[in-house]
């Protein structure tokens, strides 16, 4: 008998920790990721990239590359048939640079050939003559006008001010700090990969790609190819993680162009170095904040200035900025504020979406401020947060009321009450690997100091600022089997698991089939902004409800029962009296119901010039407590435990929620102590997993979790998005713990050894 049989049996309804439908294929290696897709007579594609952060292209000579045996196509900007640029919010990024390159790694040409090594040699044979220009790499220089515009759209991507309440208000206690957040990479493991196949008879192109948003890709690709959107058919290739990095397109247009040019299937698969250069990153930011508070620690006013480095192209910088400035106060009551935020253009790597989307940066600053405030007021870090904790009905500094369930105080109290680690420094077995420094045996137990830190956050869910945010789902119910169709990108988060749970719960079926995820159905919006459980979950719920209504109507017609009295009970349909009862399988025998629904959340508004407006949809809250061991002399850190109580609304699949929480914390830990793309003068110094360090099994501690389940009446299933909050405040909690251990301020992440010893 296996221990596994001791696990409670589930029938796959909402609230059950059922396993992933793709789990078996993934553990057996038979799940097809986008990089695993092949086709007959398939060519390999590869991309030539700029070695310079800023240069004028004088000439491109392809002749030597064409002479290499096995090369089938070489394309440059001249070969782009449609729109020459693309972008999520503004179309400012060239498919291929033609006159100017604006960052290291910007695509200039692409080749298709018979083997990756042939591609590599062809790229090496392309001769590009550049006139190197001075790169703009300091965001402040983008702001002060001391560097000429590096793009026709200028060096300022967006400025947003927030003016709230009485900006002349002052407090008894004033604390300020300047916080620096380094450039983090999403570092999904499944590298960018796509397979493009020319349509039969030259009719458009079929693209299999790992992405977060099929329809947005489709729109941008079609524009660049000069095709109608329906001529560009997208199917989701298996996605090996995303975390925001697949929201912008990268290789999509290149792959399609090569396939259309050669008339053959083409695969492109990025290397890890290319991946670092080829997708957007988390914005590096510098944030100054000044908090005014009463002597007993109540926030009176916040002043802030935020500068987000957007890199060479706009991507989602303007939306990231808005998230940053509108989350200045954190999950705390605050009436008065003056905030200025800037997103600027530089010749650094383009930045855009990453888990937490602007809020990570703001949270690192406001939580550093809360600790400063606690110290200035002589309060415990937990106490100061409780005193200021936001509640439902409170207003943000944008004037927007919080309509959600807002259990901030509960998150704080429950986190603080979770057990601390029972093991002493170095563990019970004294294995030196348990100390900071790990296998390097750099420390003995007496060198180590332990610290505890606390942080809390608020994170908006879904899209903001008036965006028409919707998700589409289709449901067919026939012979007791529900078939769902949606274009929701499954990137690992587990939407396909809960989609089935929703359908089973609403329809009383056991068997739910999932159609391929492609553009043959309406858009589901992006798998980002913690939105798919709410949005695509809402759409699946709505369409299943609609189908259920049709099923009840048909029963009413056949059996003469009142459809309005019918409900689902397990696998049966029953009426209010309990007299009528029929299984769903029997009720749908020989019948078929087929509906499609678009689900929208309540509309949002733009911010006005003073940053006022109901720009966000909904919010989730979380608290984190970190315990760290620090070697103050060498500046090395080992995180021992992270405890968290998270406002999840309702855990539709607790196992899945735990996975999101633990995984999100791991990324927050990475930003706290090791992850940074290091750039100097526009060049990336560490584009590899040898030098861009991700947390390993030995870096990630035990996580102690309390799920706070207060179903949100605004949410279609009571469930809030759970993906981003774990990443937002785990970072400042860990940094606070390091500060606690060594007794000094550290205001930048990742925390480097020199920041600790310096």
């Amino acid at each position, binding site marked *: 008998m296996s221990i596994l049989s001791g696990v409670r049996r589930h029938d796959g309804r909402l609230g059950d920790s059922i396993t992933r439908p793709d789990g078996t294929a993934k553990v057996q290696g038979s799940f097809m990721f986008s990089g695993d897709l092949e086709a007959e007579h398939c060519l390999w594609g590869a991309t030539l990239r700029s070695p310079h952060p800023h240069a004028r292209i004088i000439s491109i000579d392809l002749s030597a590359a064409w002479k290499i045996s096995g090369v089938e196509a070489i394309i440059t900007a001249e070969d782009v048939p449609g729109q020459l640029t693309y972008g999520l919010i503004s179309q400012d990024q060239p498919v291929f640079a033609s006159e100017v390159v604006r960052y290291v790694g910007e695509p200039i040409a692409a080749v298709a050939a018979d083997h990756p090594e042939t591609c590599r040699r062809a790229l090496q044979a392309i001769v590009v003559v550049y006139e190197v220009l001075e790169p703009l790499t300091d965001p402040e220089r983008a702001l002060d006008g001391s560097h000429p515009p590096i793009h026709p759209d200028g060096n300022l991507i967006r400025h947003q001010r927030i003016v709230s309440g009485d900006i002349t208000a002052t407090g008894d206690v004033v604390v300020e700090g300047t916080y620096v957040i380094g450039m983090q990479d999403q570092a999904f493991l499944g590298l960018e990969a796509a397979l493009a196949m020319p349509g039969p008879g030259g009719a458009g192109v079929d693209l299999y790609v790992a992405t977060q948003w099929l329809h947005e890709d489709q729109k941008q690709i079609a524009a660049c190819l000069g095709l109608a959107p329906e001529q560009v058919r997208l199917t989701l290739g298996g996605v090996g993680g995303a975390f925001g990095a697949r929201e912008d397109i990268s290789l999509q247009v290149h792959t399609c162009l090569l396939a259309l040019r050669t008339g053959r299937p083409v695969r492109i698969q990025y290397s890890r170095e290319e991946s670092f250069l080829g997708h957007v990153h988390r914005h590096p930011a510098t944030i100054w904040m000044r908090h005014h508070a009463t002597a007993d620690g109540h926030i009176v006013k916040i002043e802030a200035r935020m500068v987000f480095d957007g890199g060479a192209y706009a991507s989602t910088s303007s939306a990231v900025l808005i998230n940053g400035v509108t989350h200045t106060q954190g999950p705390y009551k605050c009436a008065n504020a003056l905030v200025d935020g800037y997103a600027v253009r530089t010749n650094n790597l383009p930045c855009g979406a990453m888990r937490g989307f602007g809020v990570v940066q703001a949270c690192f600053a406001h939580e550093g401020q809360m600790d400063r405030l606690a110290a200035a007021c002589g309060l415990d870090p937990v106490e100061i947060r409780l005193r200021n904790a936001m509640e439902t009905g409170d207003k943000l500094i944008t004037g927007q009321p919080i309509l959600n369930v807002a259990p901030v105080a509960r998150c704080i109290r429950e986190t603080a009450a979770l057990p601390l680690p029972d093991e002493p420094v170095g563990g019970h077995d004294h294995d030196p690997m348990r100390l900071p*420094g790990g296998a390097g045996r*750099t420390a003995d137990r007496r060198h180590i100091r332990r610290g505890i830190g606390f942080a809390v956050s608020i994170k908006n869910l879904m899209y903001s600022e008036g965006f028409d945010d919707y998700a589409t789902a289709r449901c067919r119910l026939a012979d007791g089997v529900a078939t769902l169709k949606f274009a929701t990108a499954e990137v690992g988060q587990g939407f396909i698991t809960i989609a089935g749970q929703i359908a089973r719960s609403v329809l009383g079926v056991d068997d739910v089939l999932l159609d391929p995820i492609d553009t043959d159905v309406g858009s589901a919006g992006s798998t980002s902004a913690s939105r798919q459980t709410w949005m695509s979950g809402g759409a699946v719920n709505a369409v299943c409800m609609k189908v259920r209504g049709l099923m009840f109507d048909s029963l009413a017609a056949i059996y003469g029962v009142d459809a309005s009295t019918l409900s689902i009970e397990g696998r049966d349909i029953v009426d209010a009296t309990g007299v009528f009862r029929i299984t769903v399988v029997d009720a749908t025998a020989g019948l078929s119901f087929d509906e499609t629904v678009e689900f929208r959340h309540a509309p949002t508004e733009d911010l006005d010039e003073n940053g006022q407006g109901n720009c966000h949809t909904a919010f989730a809250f979380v608290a984190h407590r970190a315990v760290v061991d620090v070697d103050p002399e060498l500046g090395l850190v080992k995180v021992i435990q992270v405890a968290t109580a998270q406002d999840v609304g309702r855990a539709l699949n607790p196992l899945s929620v735990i996975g999101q929480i633990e995984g999100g914390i791991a990324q927050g830990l990475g930003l706290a102590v*090791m992850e940074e793309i290091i750039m100097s003068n526009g060049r990336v*110094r560490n584009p590899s997993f040898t*030098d861009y360090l991700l947390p*390993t099994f030995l*870096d990630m501690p035990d996580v102690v979790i309390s799920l706070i389940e207060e179903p949100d009446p605004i949410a279609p299933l009571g469930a809030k998005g759970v993906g981003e909050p774990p990443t937002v405040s785990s970072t400042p909690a860990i940094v606070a713990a390091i500060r606690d251990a060594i007794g000094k301020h550290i205001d930048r992440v990742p925390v480097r050894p*020199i920041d600790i010893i310096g």
Partner: protein
Amino acid sequence: MPVLVPTSLDQAVSMLSATPDALVLAGGTDAMVEVNAGHRKPHHVLVVNRVAELRSWTFDPEASTVRIGSAVTYAELMEPPIADLVPALAEASRTVGSPQIRHAGTLGGNLGTCSPAGDGLPVLAALDAIVHLASATGERSMPIGEFMVGVKRNARRPDELITAVTVPVVSGYQGYSKVGVRNAMVIALATACIVVDTPGRTVRLAIGSVGTTIIRCTDAEAFAASAVDFDSGTASGDTVTRFGELAAAASRPIDDHRATADYRRHAIGVMAGRLLRRGFANV
């Protein structure tokens, strides 16, 4: 066949003499990184990790030395009894990459690559290891200090194979320390290996990742030999501090994206002092 897989040393050296441009491949954990990145395009490859003579280590109780074949892996060096004979090498091996890397990577590969960040090299340097080379024309041996020439440069001729190293079994504390900013699988920012020879009344210290090649801290060694009490196995706090300062002074680090030179120098001082303290109790 451009990939040669000899199983005996005679075969291996004669193949290499016929194709001296061959890429000598042991565990592949360094060379394949360069091949995958397109930095190295091999035409001929000589695979040495199935040469029987290179795969084993032997203990000579008479000479009190261990001869370690160049194709012995880090995973093997972590296991007793060799881990007990040369404990610092076992400690260094445990810091190499990941379990996967330690199963493939070899001590000979570490010598062949000769990176200043090579984890095994400070141990070999502190032990005054002798490196053995063989070619079709004969064998030669040289001290590790002569073998290591510079960053990724060594004294091996293209027609030679690294066959083994010989290290002494030393009576006294020996230990290895490595600073990296991750708790596993990390390239060294700075490394240090101490070897205390109690009967010989010497303390040896080698440091890595802080110069073009591994550095022996001779000033620190001379100071320690006179300042520690070998009989009682103790050292004063001042001795530990001074030892660390002399070690740091011997380092020649550079600034790069992984760490500043100042941090590396500082780390050497801290590690050296702590290693000495592990070998000698506080007075």
